[in-house]
């Protein structure tokens, strides 16, 4: 056989192998978490808070962490949205395409998105010390919001870039100004994409542990105040796995299953919503 053909086949096999490893590792992770977690999962975990000695193997659940994570995630996503949405509209409607400011802003958002979450956590910690805040739900919300602002803004930015310029021109031609065009025309057209971006950022905020370690603290109680520490699901998993007791560790696996299931649900929902509501495609 031709040497070129042999080389072609070797590399094609290598590529197939790599793709198999990448996709297979996802399957491997999901299978491991589901198989190990399902065995330890029970209703108590979902509806009870840790009783004394929970981390020694006594009874209770992780409702505090599930609720805490959801509340922290919703708060942080909302706060991030308040910053991201105006920034994206400014980037796409108020600034000229390829203006120096827009380029710089996008570049900085990309760089911010690459900063590790532990650094956001450490920064949130210095911020707390500066303002005299203690580890609390509020500090956690602010830190996670900062962490997801770059992700959210950049993914919304990609959505808005795809909207044809003609739509805007039509709106301007009818006498609408940029704010009106943003809210009444572009926002509606981009809504499915915006919802997807919000859900993806929510999932990212929910799963992150390193940023809340310093800032949100941990507690066995249900969240009830912005100024009190709050438990989060990733940290609950981390702490349960860190104990030397097998039964607590397997509860950690079950907690990992809960977190993964929530994140899977969010990403399926995001995909579904963006398909379902992308009508009037232009």
């Amino acid at each position, binding site marked *: 056989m031709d040497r070129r053909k042999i080389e072609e086949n070797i590399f094609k096999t290598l590529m197939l192998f790599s793709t198999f490893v990448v996709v297979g590792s996802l399957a491997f992770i999901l299978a491991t978490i589901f198989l190990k977690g399902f065995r330890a999962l029970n209703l108590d975990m979902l509806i009870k808070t840790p009783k004394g000695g929970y981390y020694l193997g006594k009874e209770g659940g992780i409702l505090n962490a599930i609720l805490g994570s959801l509340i922290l995630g919703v708060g942080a996503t909302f706060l991030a949205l308040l910053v991201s949405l105006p920034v994206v509209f400014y980037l796409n409607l108020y600034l000229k395409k390829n203006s120096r400011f827009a380029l710089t802003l996008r570049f900085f958002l990309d760089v911010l998105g690459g900063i590790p979450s532990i650094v956001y956590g450490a920064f949130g910690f210095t911020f707390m010390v500066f303002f005299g805040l203690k580890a609390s739900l509020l500090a956690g919300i602010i830190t996670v919001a900062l962490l997801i602002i770059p992700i959210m803004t950049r993914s919304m930015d990609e959505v808005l870039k795809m909207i044809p310029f003609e739509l805007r021109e039509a709106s301007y031609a009818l006498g609408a100004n940029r704010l009106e065009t943003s809210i009444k025309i572009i926002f509606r057209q981009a809504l499915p994409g915006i919802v997807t971006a919000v859900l993806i950022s929510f999932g990212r905020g929910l799963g992150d542990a390193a940023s809340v370690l310093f800032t949100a603290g941990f507690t066995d109680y249900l969240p009830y105040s912005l100024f009190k520490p709050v438990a989060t699901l*990733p940290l609950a998993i981390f702490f349960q796995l860190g104990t030397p007791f097998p039964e607590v560790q397997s509860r950690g696996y079950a907690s990992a299953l809960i*977190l993964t299931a929530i994140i899977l649900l969010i990403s399926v929902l995001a995909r579904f919503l963006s398909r379902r509501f992308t009508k009037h495609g232009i």
Partner: protein
Amino acid sequence: MDIRKFLPAGRQVKDNLARRIMFGLCLFVLSLAFFMVFGLYQRAKPILAMRPLKDLLFSGAWHPTQGQFGLASFITGTLWVTTIAMGIAVPLGILTAIYLSEYAHRRTREFAKPLIDLLAGISPVVYGVWGVIAIVPLTGFSALTGGIVLAVMAFPIIISIVAEVIRTVPFEIREASSALGATKWQTIKFVVLKKAWPGIIAAVILGLSRAFGETMAVLMVAGCSLGVFPKSVFDPAYPLPALIANTYGEMMSIPLYDAAVLLAAFVLLLVTIFFNMVGWSILLRIERREAGG
């Protein structure tokens, strides 16, 4: 006659107000990186004033109670796990990206993309749990385990950027290469990769930076224990981010301890900002070249 009389009042006022608020928020986002550098530097300053930087970065003696804060063993740990991770993730990631964008059927590609996105969405702690259950029994709590888990975590960013860059290579030059009798692989090797290599370098840098700063998963599987200089891949490693996460809680009681830990965060911040600036600049240049034709 002035047409503005017929329009609802205050429309332009609202537009102007909105523009200012939006501009303010943009400035806030823009200044965030500076705030982070400044904030962490302020907190790390006490130790920088007391100890020479050379000792802090290149000494392996970490005894907070005796006032010794050498970060060298943690920096070595970070280098070990990131090197292993990149050794796995770079070839596999690049080959997968080439396969998906050049060989795979459109349906395969559309099937694989959401899966790779999902890989990026899984919580780092869940990666850690997976590592503990599935990888640790084979390779122990070691630098190698940390590297394997980090490699899987770095796949999505490497694959998506390489695929993106390959897409920017014009179709016509592929056709020209095929017309000259090159096989598909020859076209990829001599034309596509030749055109795409700066972008691939950027993907590697960004993947490296991701692995460099990853914390929780590594903390759970790399066997982080003090006073260890990893000498082989089967030794435990204690990377820098894990140190920051692990010492929370005890650091407030010992003088200079918090400054040392925040110095570690400051170093991490500077390194990742540098990597990201280099990586994204390369990609920005490719994007502009493409837009310019």
